[in-house]
Structures are given as structure tokens and as C-alpha cells.
């Protein structure tokens, strides 16, 4: 079976671990548990007639982009940049992370997930800011690890991109 490595990237407490847990185990917890190092999960998905095993690298979110350990990125076939809609700074850090990933692994498919869609009344992002990012060619999906909104779509869309379908 084809295996593809996906890295979950973003600053701390944006919901990377929660998104993986929602996707792999259909579980959500409100308690924030910081990740140290990396936790790797796997899940088989079907894209068209093609079965594929996704290897999900949930990487420790750093306060500073420079602290992201590049060795974790080795062999990445695609990545999900995660921002927290209630914390504007997390969106802008995804740009720096994307630049670093591109320098490290080259051009690989990615999506930007704006997480915590269940808290839109607390969002600090303006619609224009998201539109501006989209206009630069980034595909953006709103997600909520809490409700499951957009989660399956995000992983399947990235899977399709990795297969070039």
C-alpha cells in the first residue's frame, strides 16, 4: 500500500493534535495538552479507487518558527498548516513556517486550516485577511476539531493533492 507522510505544523495550541485525534479516533477533548517532540499516527484513506496509508506527524508547535526541528520534515509528502481563528498571530506565523518548509523539503502540497470554527464569535481574523491569503494561491479550509467541521475534508483534499488527482 502507498504510504504518504503528512506533517501537522503551526504554533502551539492551535489544535494540531485535536485535529489528528478527531480524524483518526473521532475523539475531542477541551483540555489543552501540549505536545513535546512528535507523535505519529496512521490512517488508511481511500481516494477514488486508491487506498493510501497516511502517516500523520503531529509536530510540537513552537513559539518561534526558527525552533522548528527540520529533521522532522524529512520525507514529507504534504503538510497541513494550522492557525487558530481566535489568535491572529498564529495565521501570520503559518507564512514563516511555510517558507521554512519549502526551503527544507521543496515544493510539496499543503493546505491552510483555520481551526476553532466553533468559536467564530471570538475570531480575531477579518474576512479580507483570509481572502488575501487565498489570492496568493493558498487553499484554505475552516475546521473545527470540536465539531468535526472540515476535518475529513482537509485530510482527503490533501490526499488528493499528494496523488495529483
Amino acid at each position, binding site marked *: 500500500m502507498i*504510504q504518504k507522510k503528512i506533517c501537522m505544523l503551526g504554533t502551539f*495550541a492551535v489544535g494540531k493534535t485535536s485535529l489528528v485525534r478527531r480524524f483518526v479516533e473521532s475523539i475531542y477533548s477541551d483540555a*489543552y495538552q*501540549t505536545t513535546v*517532540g512528535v507523535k505519529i499516527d496512521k490512517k488508511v484513506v481511500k481516494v477514488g479507487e486508491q487506498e493510501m496509508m497516511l502517516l500523520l506527524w503531529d509536530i510540537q508547535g513552537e513559539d518561534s518558527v526558527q525552533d522548528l*526541528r527540520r*529533521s522532522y520534515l*524529512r*520525507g514529507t509528502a504534504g503538510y497541513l498548516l494550522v492557525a487558530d481563528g481566535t489568535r491572529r498571530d498564529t495565521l501570520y506565523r503559518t507564512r514563516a513556517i511555510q517558507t521554512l518548509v519549502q526551503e527544507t523539503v521543496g515544493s510539496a502540497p499543503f493546505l491552510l486550516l483555520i481551526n476553532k470554527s466553533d468559536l467564530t464569535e471570538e475570531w480575531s481574523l477579518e474576512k479580507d485577511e483570509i481572502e488575501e491569503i487565498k489570492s496568493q494561491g493558498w487553499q484554505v479550509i475552516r475546521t473545527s476539531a470540536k465539531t468535526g467541521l472540515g476535518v475529513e475534508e482537509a485530510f482527503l483534499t490533501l490526499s488528493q493533492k499528494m496523488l495529483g488527482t
Partner: protein
Amino acid sequence: MIEFPAPICDFILALTFETRAPAYLLVAEDNSVVDWGGNLDSYNITGLQKDKDLDQQIYFLAGLLPLEDNNIFLPSVKMEGGLYADVYLFREAQRTWVLLLDASTSTIEQRRLQQKAYDLELER
């Protein structure tokens, strides 16, 4: 390299074996697993088959090989059994050694401190 007296080297070696559950794998150039040993059970790595592809046997190592010039260090990789491992990959001739050392104690402590720091930052 700094030279140490033999008793110091022996002590460091004994300490590593006692506290860090070393385990290793040897991977051939064609990515097949040719040898293994040490405390692999501690990391829930079981049922290995000789000459079978690494990526099909140990999913967290999939896609990492072949190494080019540089060695790789993956700190604090959470294993299925719950331990954290520091994973080192380095070349010797045409083969790659994979070394796992238990990093649970330091990782759990780092996690405790990091959790406090991030909780405080999120409260601001």
C-alpha cells in the same frame, strides 16, 4: 576527540544501558532490515522480518531513508507503547544504523514546563 579514562567510559556505557533502554536496527541500502537488537520490545517494535522493507515494518521510519551525507536526529518521538524515544540515524559504509534511546524522563519534564508556560501565555 577528548580521551576519557576507561572507568569513565565504562560508567557512561553502563549508565546508558541502565537508564535509556538502547535498541538498534541495521538497514541495508535497498531499505531492507538486515539486523536488530537491544530493547526493541520497550518501544513496541516486534515481529520484525529480515530482508523485508523497513517502511512496511516500522511506519514511523517510513520515508526517512536513504540518508545523504547528514545523520538525522529525531528527538522525543512518542512510541505506540507510550515511551518517548530519541531516534538517531547514521550511515556506516552503505548501511544505516537506527539507534533508539529512551527519552521519556526528560520529555515528560519538558512537557510539564512547556505546559505551564503555554497555559500562562494563553491566559494573557
